[in-house]
C-alpha cells in the first residue's frame, strides 16, 4: 500500500490528527545526483572507479536492479563527503590506495582495467578475509547499506509494510516473499 495512504487511513481509524510537519517529512529526502557528468566529491578518480567496480561486483544487476542502477557509487561518495571527518577521509583514501595495490597484485596488472572474471577472482581473495581488512569491510558495508536504504529496493523489491498494525510471531514465509524491508 502507498505509505501516505496508509498513514491517512491509520490516522482516521484511530482518531489521530497528523501534523503537517509529520506528513511533509516523507516528501523530502535523499536524492542522488544522476547527471551524466558526475564529478566525485571526495574520492580520487581511481578510487572512485574502485568504488564503482566494487558496487558492480558485490551487488550486480540481475533480475533485480544492481547497485550501479541505483547510483550507489555516487551515494558512497556523497556519504563520505558529508559524514567522514578529515581524519577518517584521509585514512579511507590511503586504505583504498593500498586496497587497489593489493588487487593489482592479485591480478598481476591493473585491477580496474581487468576483465570481470579477473576482478572477481582478485576480489574474492580480499573478501574471504574480510575481517582483516577494515577499509574493504567498511566500503562493502556502505555499499550494501546504500543499496537497501534506497527507495527502489526498500519499497519495491523488499516486502514493504509501512504500518503493519499487528505483530504475528509465526506465519508461513511463503506468504511474505522477499525479506521485510524495515525492521
Amino acid at each position: 500500500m502507498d505509505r501516505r495512504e496508509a498513514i491517512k487511513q491509520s490516522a482516521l481509524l484511530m482518531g489521530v490528527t497528523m501534523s503537517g510537519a509529520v506528513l511533509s517529512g516523507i516528501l523530502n529526502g535523499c536524492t542522488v545526483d544522476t547527471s551524466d557528468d558526475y564529478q566525485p566529491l571526495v574520492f580520487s578518480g581511481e578510487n572512485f572507479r574502485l568504488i564503482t567496480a566494487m558496487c558492480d561486483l558485490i551487488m550486480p544487476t540481475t533480475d533485480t536492479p544492481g547497485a550501479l542502477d541505483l547510483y550507489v557509487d555516487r551515494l558512497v561518495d556523497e556519504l563520505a563527503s558529508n559524514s567522514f571527518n578529515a581524519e577518517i577521509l584521509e585514512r579511507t583514501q590511503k586504505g583504498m590506495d593500498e586496497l587497489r595495490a593489493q588487487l593489482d597484485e592479485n591480478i598481476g596488472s591493473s585491477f580496474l582495467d581487468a576483465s570481470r572474471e579477473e576482478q572477481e577472482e582478485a576480489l574474492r581473495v580480499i573478501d574471504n578475509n574480510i575481517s582483516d581488512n577494515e577499509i574493504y569491510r567498511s566500503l562493502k558495508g556502505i555499499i550494501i547499506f546504500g543499496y537497501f536504504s534506497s527507495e527502489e529496493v526498500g519499497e519495491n523489491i523488499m516486502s514493504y509494510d509501512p504500518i503493519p498494525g499487528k505483530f504475528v510471531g509465526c506465519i508461513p514465509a511463503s506468504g511474505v516473499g522477499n525479506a521485510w524491508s524495515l525492521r
Partner: protein
Amino acid sequence: MANINGKGIAQNSYDAIVVGSGVSGGWAAKELCEKGLKTIVLERGRDVKHGEYPTAFQDSWDMENRGVLTAEENARHFKQVRTGFMKKDKIHWFVDDKRNPYQEDKRFDWIRGYHTGGRSLTWGRQCYRWSEMDFEANAKEGIAIDWPIRYKDIAPWYDYVEGFVGISGQKMGLPQLPDGVFQKPMDMNCLEKHVKERIEKEFPGRYMTIGRSANLTEALNGRGPCQFRNRCVRGCPYGAYFSSNSTTLPAAENTGNLTLRPYSIVTEVIYDSDSGKAKGVRIVDQQTRESIEYFASVIFLNASAIGSTAIMLNSKSDRFPDGLGNDSGELGHNLMDHHFRIGAAGVFEGMEDQYYTGRRPNGIYIPRFRNLDEGSDRNYVRGFGYQGRARRMDWNEVADKPGFGAEFKDSLIKPGSWYMSITGFGECLPYHENRMYLHKDKTDEWGMPVVVFDAGWKQNELNMRIDMGNDAAEMLEASGLKDVEIFDYHSTIGEGIHEMGTARMGDDPKTAVLNGNNQVHGAPNVYVTDGACMTSASCVNPSITYMALTARASNHAVEELKKGNI
C-alpha cells in the same frame, strides 16, 4: 537578578513546582494537578507537544544523507553518539555536547535530551517491578544502607501507575519478578517459542517470557494501540507508548492547573532557614539568561539522577553549606547504573518456512535466576536478567561477512537464517566512591557548575559478568542453536542510561539524603523522586519504579500540605 517585589512574588507563586518533565516529572505534574495544586513545571529545554515528531514516518530514503549523521553532527554530539543508536531520525532528542559539557575523571556516558518529555520519549519502555528481595538485599548483605521501604509500601502504587501507563506483559507468578497490571502480552516468534520451551525444560528455575513493555496492545484513554512500526524512539503519533508528552502531561493539562515553562534551567533551590523549608527555586532562562525566582509550598525535583543532584549540590546555604539536604555527605555518591553488553548469540538451522509479520517494539525477557536462595555458591551477590530476541537475519547482520555477486545479492533479498541473541543486564552495587560532583571553577554558558563523574564497575560486577556470558551461551546451546558465541562489548558505566543513587533514600539523615517518602532530610517540602533516590539498583529497568515512587510521594505531599506539616 530580577528584583522581585510583592506583586512579582505573587505572580511567580504556585502551590507546587516540578523541576523536569521526563518520566518522573510528568507523573508529579499529573498527580499534583489532579489533586488541585496549581503547578508549574520548569523544563530546561524547548517545548515539544505530543505529535511533534518530525521523523515519525520517514524511511531511510526520506532522510537527508539516508539518515546517517554528518561529520558536524557527530562532532556536536561526540558523547551522545557513544551509544551507537543515535542517527538523524532521533538526533533532535539528544543534547548538543558542545553546549552541555561535562567532565570525566573516569569515562561516564551521560546520555540525555533537553526538551519537554526528556527521556520519556526515548526510553526502552521495559517495565519490571522490584521484588521484596531487592528492597531487603542491602540490609541482609550489610551493603550500603537499608531501604526505608519494602515491597508492600510500593505495590499499590505500582498497580496505580501501571493501569494508567498501559503495560503489555504476561503474568508468571515469580517472587523475584512480581506480576503487575498488564494488557495482553505481545506474541513471540517461532524460534523464541522454541527456545523458551527448551530453556524451561533443561534449566529448572529459569524462565523466558515476552518483555513487559509500556507499549499498548489495547487502546487506553484515547491512546494506541501499537501499530508495530518499531519507531517508538522517534515519538509515536498514535500515542501507543508511554511518554510524558502523550500520557501524563495531557492529563495534567486537562485539570487547568498546569503551567509548563520551557527554557527554564533551575540552578538552585532557595532554602529558608526561618521555616526550615525551601521557599522556591531560582532559574536562568535558557534563551534570555534572565534570572527568575519561583515560589511554592512544595517542590519536586525530577531533573534526573544527575540533574536533580547537581541542583541540590549547587543549593548552598548557611544551614546546608555542602548542598541542600547533604548533612550525610552522601549527596552525589553511590552512583549506579546497570552493566550489560555481554551475552551470547547463535543461529538456528530450520524453520525456513516460518516468518513473522509486524515490527515488534519489544523483545523477550529471562528473569533473574542466580542468587535467589540463601545457600547460593556464586562469587558475587545479586543477579542479572536477559533481554533479547530472535529474528531472521537480513543484510544488517551479514554485510561484514564474506560473499559478493549475484547469488550473494539474491540471498540478502530473501529472508536469512534464524538467529537469536540475548544480553544480560546486571545489578551494580552502591559504592560510596562512585560519584558525581560539581567542578569547583568550570561552569557552562548559563553559569551552572559543570558535572564531573568519577565512577566505575568493581569486582562484584566483573565476577557477575562471567556468569552473564556463560549462562547465555549454555541456554542457547541447549536450545539447539549453532555457532553460539559469547560476546562482551564491555559495558561503560552510564551507557545503560539508568543513572541512580546520588541522593539515596534512608531513615537516618546521617547516612541518607531522602527519607522513606522521598522528602529531603532537613527540607521536608522538597521531594526527589527520580533515579537519584534509589538506595540500590536491582537488575531490572528502573523507570516504572520511579513512576510508582513519584505517585506515592505526590500523594504524601498533598496529605502533608492538608495537615499543615509542610
